[in-house]
């Protein structure tokens, strides 16, 4: 915006009284230094005022009109024309025509009277008020317009959606109709076929009746009379079967027996019940355990060959356990475990020994260790796990830790639900727990 005549602005209220033959720049607070237009012309008649404002070369597109009932502002940067109207007008019925270098306003007066002049002289505050009102009004109008537009768009969308739905429904109905027709046709065919069947059957029956029992004598095997069956079927199959029964059937097959075997499996459950990954894991673990021998122990040098074999030691320990020598059995298992820490049976059996020796804590430790080694839980190690659970449960109960003991007994029952002794024991423990709490 060029600043042609910067000067200290006179008080705002005075700018209207400047003689308007030339353009005058005034610094106004609200706008961006527009040039006030003063060379407008106006005429009037009884009910209309015509104002003509030259556009001074500004394109009609950039003309912005704000009009209320008492105020008209035309802003076409860098020019501005505003007028506080002498009388009030009907803004809705007024119109503006912008083009050909001039903006013509046709304002409808509210009251049919003749205006002495276009302007009214009103003070600064009133002017400000009117301007603000005008701005508000414009905003309102804009808001309303946008709302109306939104509503219209909504309407159109709904309409589009409805039409789409209608079209799709039509398509669906059409396909359904086709399917139904097909169905009806097939049903009709079926009924027709049955009718023909029945008719031929009846005909055949009548034929049979008239012919008597003659043909039936030729069938040596068939004892039943044909008339018992109502629907004997079409004639061709009847003839075929008669031909077959006419010749002798081969004698019953001489008895035979074929022995079969089934695909072998390491585990007894069928593939659908087996848990193959876990079972493989268990097998691998077993294989590893057998191989793991901890040989760098100094004491091993003075052991015999037998005593270096964990299996032999385990057997020895078992024998000692049977004969009641629990401490010696523990020693044997200790040595075996030193050689191979991965065999769960050793820990489990040592736990049994400790139970007998009333070393309850050690029993618990050992059976826990055994259970650790017996993961993953598969059908193959079920009995081993059962024993370990029972031993640990017993140890807990002896220590009066009944809740933990009950947990182990429950686990054991899960493995073997049909064991009556287990069930009796766990019931007893339940009672004890309930009795003490």
């Amino acid at each position, binding site marked *: 915006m060029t600043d042609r005549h910067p000067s200290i602005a006179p008080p705002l209220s005075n700018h209207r009284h400047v003689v308007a033959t030339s353009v005058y720049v005034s610094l106004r607070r609200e706008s961006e230094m527009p040039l006030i237009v003063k060379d407008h012309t106006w005429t009037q008649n009884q009910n209309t005022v015509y104002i003509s404002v030259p556009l001074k070369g500004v394109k009609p597109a950039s003309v912005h009109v704000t009009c209320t009932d008492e105020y008209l502002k035309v802003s076409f940067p860098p020019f501005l024309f505003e007028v506080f109207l002498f009388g009030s007008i009907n803004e809705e019925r007024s119109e503006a025509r912008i083009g050909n270098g001039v903006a013509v306003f046709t304002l409808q007066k509210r009251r049919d009277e003749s205006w002495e002049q276009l302007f009214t002289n009103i003070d600064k505050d009133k002017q400000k008020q009117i301007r603000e009102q005008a701005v508000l009004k414009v905003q309102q109008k804009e808001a309303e317009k946008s709302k109306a537009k939104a509503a219209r768009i909504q309407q159109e969308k709904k309409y589009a959606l409805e039409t789409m739905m209608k079209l799709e429904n039509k398509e669906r109905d059409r*396909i359904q109709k*086709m*399917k139904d027709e*097909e*169905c009806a046709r*097939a*049903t009709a065919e*079926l*009924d027709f*076929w*049955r009718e023909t*069947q029945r008719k031929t059957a009846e005909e055949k029956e009548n034929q049979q009746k008239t012919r008597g029992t003659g043909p039936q004598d030729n069938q040596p095997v*068939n004892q*039943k009379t*044909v008339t*018992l*069956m109502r*629907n*004997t*079927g*079409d004639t061709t*199959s*009847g003839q*075929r*079967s008669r031909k*077959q*029964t006419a010749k002798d*059937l*081969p*004698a*019953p*097959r*001489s*008895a*035979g*027996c*074929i*022995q*079969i*075997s*089934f*695909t072998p*499996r390491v585990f*007894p459950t*069928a*593939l*659908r019940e087996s848990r193959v990954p876990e079972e493989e894991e268990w097998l691998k673990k077993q294989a590893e355990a057998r191989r793991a021998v901890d040989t760098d122990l100094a004491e091993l040098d003075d052991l015999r060959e037998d005593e270096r074999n964990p299996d032999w030691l385990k057997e020895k320990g078992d024998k000692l356990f049977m004969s009641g020598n629990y401490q010696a059995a523990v020693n044997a298992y200790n040595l075996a475990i030193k050689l191979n820490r991965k065999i769960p049976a050793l820990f489990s059996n040592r736990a049994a020994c400790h139970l007998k020796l009333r070393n309850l804590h050690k029993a618990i430790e050992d059976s826990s260790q055994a259970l650790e080694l017996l993961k993953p839980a598969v059908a193959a190690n079920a009995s081993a796990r059962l024993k370990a659970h029972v031993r640990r449960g017993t140890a807990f109960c002896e220590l009066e830790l009944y809740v933990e003991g009950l947990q182990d007994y429950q686990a054991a029952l899960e493995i073997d639900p049909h064991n009556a002794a287990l069930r009796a024991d766990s019931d007893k423990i339940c009672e004890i727990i309930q009795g003490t709490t």
Partner: protein
Amino acid sequence: MSSALEKPQIIAHIQKSLNYTVFDSQWIPCSAKFVCMGNFARGSGVLQIYEIQHGELQLVREIEKAKPIKCGTFGATSLQQRHLATGDFDGSLNVWNLEVPESPVYSVKAHKEIINSIDGVGGLGIGDGAPEIVTGSRDGTVKVWDSRQKDTPVVNMEPMEGETKRDCWTVAFGHAFNDQDRCVCAGYDNGDIKLFDLRNMSLRWETNIKNGVCSVEFDRKDINMNKLVATSLEGKFHVFDMRTQHPTKGFASVSEKAHKSTIWQVRHLPQNRDIFMTAGGAGNLHLWKYEYPAQRTKKGADDVDMGVAGSVNLLQNVTLSTQPISSLDWSPDKQGLCVCSSFDQSVRVLIVTKLNTV
């Protein structure tokens, strides 16, 4: 018409809700009637005969028996007699005359446990040779019976001494193209499929498909064995080309995964042996067509003939119920008509259209 309806359509023509669990349904040959077999909630077996009339099922006859009935077949009777052979939960094989059902025509305590599957051959004017019935049971044995011989089977396929037994879930006859030849195929719950040759009284072929075998069927019983379809748990079925047997590799096969659940039954269309329908555990039916390969045999590595398996195409599928469809039977008289029963205690009559243009 749009191209969508050029494929065969499976139309549920009639559906009937029953008040008992139905295990099997079979068409009575040369009629518009079928038999449903099952058991009442009170533990007794039932046979119901229905007739299709004017788009509805009319109950013609209801027969109650002591033990629940698991399976039945008309395969071993003549067209005049149309006796039904049934296997029940007790292991008894009975052959009934449905007009006089009070006492069976032939009865034998076939197995110690439930008879899971039954098949008949030599009757209905199909094939040559003596009519025989084969039963497969949970006690791991497969026995072949002839109604002229009482009390003992003519062939017994049993596990060897000391062998843990596996349930036999399905049996089927095949290769019965002359008086002497006959084969029995049995499927077990551990995935074993065994083919027994009854002429030589020997095991001809066996294989294992890793999952329990729910149903086996030859495409035709009365021809030189051509194709065998075996369905299993977990939605897989295998089609074996039975024309060429390799000494070590056995028969060539193609397998397909469908249904996402157990495939309970497979049945070939009587009028076209390359079309078959599989019934699944999710209540759906798939209609398949087998395409033969360009060459059915080829020379293997050691210059021995090997079979070549073809391919299967899915023609159509439909979901009828939420419960497994346990049995399916095509009508031998009208192409495309079939009856199926499912565990939602209902039986449905279906029409499959456009099978002659497939």
